[in-house]
């Protein structure tokens, strides 16, 4: 038994935002009530803290199997709990690709052995994510995959995407779409705009994303299915998704903190740690992303944690791999939206707990009595400086090194066990 006493409990799934105490029994939430008496229990004083359902990062790359020198499921989930996440979904672009049940089962076994955060494997839509033959959705789901995506690659073939949407929908499973028109993005290394023009680096136009978002919306509408758009980075995508939602089309969307924090000007010094796909865009796109978060067009915030080692990053800019790590900075960067008045703290927590849980159709993101005791305790006032050398992640590819941030997860509880604590 454990009692979290005196904190401000924010649980958007139950519309709770007030001072309450949380009693944990046998790894489950027992009660969430006011003034729970301190009995024979371990009592943790969380006065002045915000207590939320365990944060969920629905878009990460844990790199195992295959690229264990960048990240393992253990190091990735260590980073997750240090960042306040009790659950992560991991994308299938490992080596081998998670396109069959043996890989899914391996990922879940490594997650069980690590025993830190919950890991939800996202399996590939197509074999080897090559866009040619559908994977066995039913068997993969049976093995533990919660969603399907060829993330890292788009499904360029619209007929294949149609089949994927229809089949997944019939099984009640979500499709997560990486939207990129490969013909338009070909050869590009950063957003196409004044920055790429100054640097003489081939650009990736915003329309490479917009067009595929629009295609997927059209496919979802026509097939009467639903689609989730990964890592939204452009004004055009936000507008298309907003319009689709107004029409009642079942589309959901996520963005990542770097898309509302940094512009392509971060690359003017050829910083490979800010090289990411989709690329960092313009100030206008940042405004559109914030507006989309505010009005609910964008449902979730996910880190798109993409570890790379110095082998991939300490090279010439055009040869560097795309991706940056975010598990340990995502929460604090997102809390800036609350300081800026763009989101209320409750709305932010909603986008990092119950919304991703609903999109992935997993029974998480709530403090409802009887549910697993996955809880994040946040100190909203804690000021800290990002230091890549203290990251739990195996990789160091963060463009936020040295940033002074406010707000931090100070305790992460998974299934009633404290997995991270600096309280």
């Amino acid at each position, binding site marked *: 038994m454990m009692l979290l006493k005196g904190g401000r409990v924010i649980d958007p799934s139950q519309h709770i935002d007030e001072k309450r105490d949380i009693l944990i029994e046998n790894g489950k939430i027992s009660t969430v009530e006011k003034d729970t008496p301190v009995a024979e229990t371990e009592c943790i004083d969380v006065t002045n803290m915000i207590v939320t359902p365990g944060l969920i990062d629905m878009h990460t790359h844990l790199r195992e199997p295959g690229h264990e020198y960048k990240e393992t499921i253990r190091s990735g989930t260590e980073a997750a709990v240090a960042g306040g996440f009790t659950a992560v979904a991991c994308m299938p672009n490992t080596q081998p690709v998670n396109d069959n049940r043996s890989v899914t089962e391996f990922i879940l076994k490594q997650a069980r052995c690590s025993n830190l955060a919950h890991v939800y494997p996202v399996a590939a839509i197509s074999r080897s994510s090559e866009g040619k033959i559908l994977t066995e959705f039913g068997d993969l789901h049976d093995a533990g995959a919660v969603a399907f995506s060829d993330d890292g690659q788009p499904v360029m073939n619209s007929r294949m995407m149609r089949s994927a949407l229809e089949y997944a929908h019939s099984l009640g499973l979500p499709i997560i779409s990486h939207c990129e028109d490969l013909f338009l993005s*070909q*050869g590009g290394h950063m957003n*196409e*705009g*004044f920055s*790429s*023009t*100054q*640097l*003489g*680096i*081939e*650009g990736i*136009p915003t329309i490479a994303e917009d067009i595929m978002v629009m295609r997927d919306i059209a496919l979802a509408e026509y097939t009467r299915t639903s689609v989730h758009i990964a890592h939204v980075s452009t004004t055009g995508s936000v507008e298309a998704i907003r319009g689709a939602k107004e029409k009642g089309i079942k589309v959901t969307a996520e963005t990542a903190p770097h898309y509302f924090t940094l512009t392509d000007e971060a690359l003017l*010094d*050829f910083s490979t740690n800010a090289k990411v796909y989709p690329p960092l865009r313009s100030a206008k796109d940042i405004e559109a992303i914030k507006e989309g978060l505010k009005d609910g067009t964008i449902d979730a915030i996910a880190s798109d944690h993409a570890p790379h080692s110095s082998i991939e990053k*300490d*090279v*010439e*800019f*055009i*040869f560097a791999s795309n991706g940056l790590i975010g598990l340990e900075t995502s929460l604090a960067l997102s809390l800036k939206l609350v300081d800026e008045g763009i989101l209320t703290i409750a709305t932010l927590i909603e986008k990092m707990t119950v919304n991703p849980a609903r999109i992935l159709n997993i029974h998480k993101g709530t403090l409802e009595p009887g549910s697993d005791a996955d809880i994040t305790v946040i100190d909203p006032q804690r000021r800290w400086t990002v230091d890549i050398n203290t990251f739990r992640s195996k990789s160091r590819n963060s463009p936020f090194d040295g940033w002074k941030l406010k707000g931090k997860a100070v305790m992460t509880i998974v299934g009633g066990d404290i997995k991270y604590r600096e309280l």
Partner: protein
Amino acid sequence: MVMKLSKKDILGIPDLSRDEINLILDTAESFLEISTRDIKKVPTLRGKTIINFFVEASTRTRTSFEIAGKRLSADTINISASTSSMVKGETLGDTAKTLEAMNPDIIVIRHNAAGAPHMLARLVRQSVINAGDGAHEHPTQALLDLLTIKNEKGHIDGLHVTIVGDITHSRVARSNILALTRMGARVTVCGPAMMMPRDIDKMGVSVSHHIEEAIENADIVMMLRIQLERQNESIFPSDREYARYFCLDREKIKAARPDVLVMHPGPMNRGVEIAPDIADGIQSLILKQVTNGVAVRMALLYLLAGGE
């Protein structure tokens, strides 16, 4: 007036102030004469070592740097892509540290990746000169172009320079736009719409897609090399179509003023972007550019080595 270049590296035009550019041009001017002597050598950089590290193929720029170094009595060493250990998979970082450990004084680098010279400069304590990085910058080309223009016209300020060609893929265009606008010239860029990088107007230039219109009031027309074969996919129909609308020939140059001067950074595609009679005509500054290139590179080597 600055008398000394207090910089470690020459990576791009934005790093150079107007005064520093004038210092480089004035120094180059004084070195021009050395190349006309019978004995083309002065002892200025005796005992200095210069590595010409050319990851991307080059004839004129590499030769120009080598001659510049030798005329100043420096020891020059050339490393090309095929002879470097990069073909064995060595990273630029490791190559950089290896070269640094041999204690050269200046490393001149050409690389097909934008930003490679900047990366090298961060890694080594020696001076680095950018001899062309991808489609980013070619600062020594822009400086030699400035010297050429200044010597012909007497000044740069107030001139109108039109640059014609594939602006998107041209480091010469980028460096020249930055250098010319910094020195007070007005710049127009001209080419097919698909060869114009996005938001290029924010660099302070006018944009045109019609060569006659673009050169109408120009004092200088700079033609860029067109390499349709280099692009992964066909973004332009053909050399023939390009030449018809953008090749500077006797007909099209009639739109310009009679005293217009013509430049080209080389190597030329005769008949594609420039007609042979224009390239070889009296308005052409093309070989003067090459001559001035040696003087500008001598000036940069001299100034970076601490001369004043």
